[in-house]
């Protein structure tokens, strides 16, 4: 029977020739992930299971990226628990301040996630790795504790949904706009429990950074995973990083999809998701009357080099609006260093932006840019729920880096065309 990419990866991880959507399977995982918020709870549950050691100390990544550098004593204690556990268990891939990056940018960059992998993480944006042609999905701390102990997880094989883009992208439009377009179309539960698969001529032209952005937000449509079949671009990314074998898989012709959506790239403008759902999408151009207080450029969604380059291109020789705080957060140390070398950081600082060490901080209202009552932010992050970035009366408008940078300059929601 023809299988989808998601089914093929899951079959390969439970020693079967075939699996089909709707089956429960127990599968072997390639990598298990937790961060400083979810790991403490996972460690507690791991202790309750009663095994003395993790299943494989090289196949667990513990990443202290959320409330780091620690914002208060309570969060410092959480990192301390993770650090102690990592040392006790000899966890090879433990990342602490100074080496840490935002987990979903860091792990692919370090070659820890590869095509064909099955990855589970105690973070909903674990689905980011689908950009590499891996099946990656978020779970809670208890599931992750069991995976750390046994190397296995139970999964319901998901139905797959196909999203095809054809045609030429408009200027400044990136993966963020494509995924917002999909979520605006199908809604925040439009792919509930499904594996989203992105394909088509437009997608083939997309950078890896844009693909990571799209896979990252699959969860915002309720999906279990968001996948791209690996191609030449994937290989270019993976070959210099991989230190173990991997599998380049793709869906069979005739594989079954519960929904198929076709889009023309030319029809998709720069988009913004208004408060308080990622599906509340409108053209950026239609929102130009809305004044803002803060801009955040960063996160596991849009903190990669491509994003920083776009933002720098627009901020070069310009100033952040006097009423706006603009916070730029390179997602990893390697991205940060490259941004320094390319002169991007000079541009940000000269424009009047704050440049931070890698952290998830402001995206979830943790630290490094929390919003006051009634304040409004344009953010390249992934969620705009009530209270997401601060006070419950604050508002988050989600956008790509081009709209974020243009908005920072003009002090209101804006498009790059208004600057150029």
């Amino acid at each position, binding site marked *: 029977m023809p299988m989808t990419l998601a089914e093929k990866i899951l079959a390969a991880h439970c020693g079967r020739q075939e699996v089909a959507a709707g089956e429960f399977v127990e599968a072997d995982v390639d990598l298990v992930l937790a961060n400083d918020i979810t790991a403490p709870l996972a460690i507690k549950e791991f202790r309750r299971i009663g095994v003395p050691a993790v299943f494989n100390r090289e196949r667990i990544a513990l990443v202290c990226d959320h409330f780091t550098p620690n914002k208060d004593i309570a969060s410092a204690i959480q990192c301390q628990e993770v650090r102690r556990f990592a040392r006790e268990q000899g966890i090879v891939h433990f990342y602490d301040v100074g080496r840490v990056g935002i987990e979903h940018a860091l792990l692919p960059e370090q070659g820890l996630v590869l095509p064909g992998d099955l990855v589970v993480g105690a973070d909903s944006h674990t689905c980011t790795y689908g950009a590499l042609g891996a099946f990656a999905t978020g779970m*809670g701390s208890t599931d992750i504790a069991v995976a750390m102990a046994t190397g296995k997880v139970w999964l319901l094989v998901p139905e797959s949904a196909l999203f095809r883009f054809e045609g030429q992208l408009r200027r400044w439009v990136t993966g963020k706009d494509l995924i917002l377009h999909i979520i605006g179309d199908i809604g925040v539960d439009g792919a509930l429990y499904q594996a989203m698969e992105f394909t088509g001529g437009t997608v083939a032209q997309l950078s890896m950074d844009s693909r990571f952005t799209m896979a990252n937000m699959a969860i915002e449509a309720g999906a279990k995973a968001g996948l791209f079949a690996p191609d030449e671009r994937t290989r270019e990314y993976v070959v210099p990083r991989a230190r173990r074998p991997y599998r380049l898989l793709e869906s069979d012709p005739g594989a079954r999809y519960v929904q198929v959506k076709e889009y023309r790239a030319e029809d998709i403008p720069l988009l913004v998701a208004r408060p308080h759902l990622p599906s509340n999408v409108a053209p950026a151009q239609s929102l130009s009357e809305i004044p803002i207080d803060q801009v955040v450029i960063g996160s596991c969604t849009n903190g990669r080099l491509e994003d920083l380059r776009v933002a720098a291109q627009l901020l070069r020789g310009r100033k952040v609006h006097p009423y706006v705080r603009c916070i730029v957060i390179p997602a990893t140390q390697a991205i940060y260093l490259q941004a320094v070398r390319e002169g991007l950081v000079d541009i940000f600082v000269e424009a009047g932006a704050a440049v931070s060490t890698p952290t998830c901080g402001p995206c979830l209202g943790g630290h490094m840019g929390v919003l006051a009552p009634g304040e409004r932010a344009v953010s390249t992050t992934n*969620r705009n729920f009530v209270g997401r970035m601060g006070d*419950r009366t604050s508002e988050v408008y989600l956008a790509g880096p081009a709209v974020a940078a243009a908005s920072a300059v003009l002090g209101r929601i804006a498009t790059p065309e208004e600057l150029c």
Partner: protein
Amino acid sequence: MLLRGRVWKFGANVDTDAIIPARYLNTSEPQALARHCMEDLDPGFAQKVRPGDIIVAGANFGCGSSREHAPVAIKAAGIACVIASSFARIFFRNAINIGLPILICPEAAQAIAQGDEVEVDLVSGSIRDLTSGVSFQAQRYPEFMLRIIEAGGLVEKVRKDLSARGAIG
């Protein structure tokens, strides 16, 4: 197992930031989390709720983050059970894993009103709105998930499996 409680009604897409805002995630202590349960949607919810109360909500309950702190906060706040039209998948797993009873029933989610007195039979999945007198039937759990529920949560099930294989004492 029979539950009986007063209903707190919420709409669709109740997200995990609404259930427990991330600013409180510098701890995983259940009682500390419970104090802020639903805070941004209904300030004072945690103070108003009585042990045994029931949440009834629309589609996609628990969407957003993977934080297990969300079902932990609801359970520690004293909520006996959540009935919704549908659940976001990570929240669904988390609730099953930590032993927060959840039921999928679009008809009940629509018809039951704020403040109604509701009786739920977790074994059969039958839901009775004692205020309106109307009964509903929730979806059955797949066999595989029933085994986790019957074991009392995922850790308990895994402990049982590992013990049977002699992997733990």
